[in-house]
């Protein structure tokens, strides 16, 4: 495993008596990582700590091996697209981006070219760039926000709810852009509540609730580690009842539910703590019962079910 780009060691953040982030210890590896959690879980505070905008009350947060608080040189390597929709409203996107480019170190023509290139990259139309930002739609604002985060080609990019306000085409384009950035070797931390988009982007997740990290790592590994939470396996077959009889005899199967789909097709929902043994025994049982298995799926082997289960604990 490569060295972490970002690490937190016992990081906590208090606002008076309220604890927003509680004793978080984690490492973020290169690639795309999704930061998930319900509202008020502490996602934005954690991003604030990661980007050096907030100082940990206790503990340490480091990026690229250096403490991030009060270290502006690290901002050359970090980009943040925050969740708020605020801008200098009277500026146009081009003016705003040129100003950001100049603050990053670009001068004159280079600043103009860089601003145009980044706005092209996020797909903001040329005719829209010269209008005041106050006239922009939510999607155009989102693109402008993303553009300012990409101006300096950061190695580590933080995106707080990047898909908010985008139409389906916009979401697709931004997803592709993020995938492209990840493939180019950028590391991205995405904070979002839109689970299916995260699933499409990455398997690496950080689940956060009440300021604590509930789970960290690959979604399938996390799911597999929840032994006390039974797996649901759905099997569609022409002889589901015969299969159910054989399955209920197995020790590792805790429950079987039958649902009629059509006259000759039924669905079995098998609850088990050992999905691997069920997958092993299914072909054998199907042969014994003379059943034809049309479809096997795991409805809860996805992010949403893991999220609901962990956050509900």
């Amino acid at each position, binding site marked *: 495993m490569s060295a972490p780009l970002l690490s937190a060691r016992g990081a906590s953040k208090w*606002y008076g008596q309220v604890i927003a982030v509680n004793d978080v210890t984690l490492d973020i590896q290169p690639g795309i990582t999704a930061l998930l959690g319900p509202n008020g879980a502490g996602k934005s505070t954690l991003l604030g700590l990661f*980007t050096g*905008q*907030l*100082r940990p009350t206790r503990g340490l947060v480091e990026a690229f091996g250096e403490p991030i608080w*009060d270290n*502006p*040189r690290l*901002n*050359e390597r*970090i*980009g*943040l697209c*925050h969740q*708020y929709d*605020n*801008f*200098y409203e*009277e500026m146009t996107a081009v003016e705003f981006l040129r*100003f*950001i480019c*100049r*603050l*990053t*170190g*670009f*001068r004159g023509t*280079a600043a103009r070219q860089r601003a145009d*290139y980044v706005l092209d990259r996020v797909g903001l139309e040329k005719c829209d760039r010269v209008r005041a930002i106050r006239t922009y739609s939510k999607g155009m604002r989102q693109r402008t926000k993303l553009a*300012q985060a990409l101006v*300096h*080609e950061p190695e580590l990019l933080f995106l707080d709810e990047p898909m908010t306000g985008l139409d389906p085409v916009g979401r697709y384009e931004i997803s592709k852009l993020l995938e*492209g950035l990840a*493939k*180019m*070797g950028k590391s991205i931390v995405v904070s979002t509540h839109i689970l299916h988009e995260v699933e499409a982007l990455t398997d690496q997740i950080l689940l956060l609730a009440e300021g604590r990290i509930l789970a960290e790592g690959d979604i399938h590994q996390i799911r597999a580690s929840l032994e006390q939470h039974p797996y649901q396996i759905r099997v569609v077959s022409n002889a589901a009842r015969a299969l159910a009889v054989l399955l209920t005899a197995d020790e590792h199967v805790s429950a079987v539910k039958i649902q009629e789909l059509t006259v000759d097709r039924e669905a079995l929902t098998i609850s088990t703590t050992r999905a691997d043994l069920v997958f092993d025994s299914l072909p054998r049982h199907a042969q014994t019962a003379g059943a034809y298995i049309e479809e096997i799926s795991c409805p809860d082997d996805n992010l949403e079910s893991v999220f609901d289960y962990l956050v509900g604990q």
Partner: protein
Amino acid sequence: MNETQQIGAKLAEETPKFIRPDPPGFVRASVLIACHTVQKLIGPKRLIFLTALLFIPVFIVAISKHEGQADEFLSFFAPVAYLLVLAPLTSLFLSATNFADEVDNRTLGYLLLRPISRETLLFGQCLGSGFVATALILFSAAAAHLVAAWPGHITGLIPSYWMGEFAGFAAVVVLSIALYTALSSVAGLVLKRPVLWGIVYMVIVEITFCYAAGPPSKIAISHHTTRLLPEAYLTPEILVTEAANRPFEAVPIPVTIIGLGVTLFLLLGLAVVAVRRSEFTSKED
């Protein structure tokens, strides 16, 4: 090379080669932030309010036809209007909420996430707001002097006379604004309602103690800055009686200048400490 690496390499080829520029130096970044601050402050609401405020002394001079003498205008009205009231007030309105406005508008993040230090940001904002305050006050003061010297207005204030003195007056105004801008920045960074507290400070300290006798007057910045004014502004017949105890000669002028310089340095130092410690969380967070 696996498929992902191949796609990555292709994308890297299609993307123009990026050479990360060196971050801007302190001076360049400060000027960029100062220009941005000026642009932000020249918004309609604040500017209309300040222009109206700065028109008041010009208006007072315009309506006081034949009623005043040159000495009275130069030694009383101009210092009181500009050094005691308008310089601190304008600096307060323009500087105290620099960071607070950015925090409330949630735009400060765009600036803090650049490779420039917080001190640079602070200095740039002070420079920008100080520039706007200086331009507005000097414009108003020049207009007031011009109206006062208009034939038929204030007796004895001939243009060739006041123009020479005005340069010195302007220099003291610039120094005052620098001091009040630094003070307002500290207030803006450490207090919850900096404008309100600033007005309270201005009334209790700057106006009350400016012409007061004895040690308490030393805490007012205006007490020291008025002493630096050119001679024409220091012939206060009107003040002779009430300020009979005022020890004009007590401290030599160079010492006053050094003292004010040290005060400015200390105020900026305090502002730097405050800006480095602050996390700038919005009220809504």
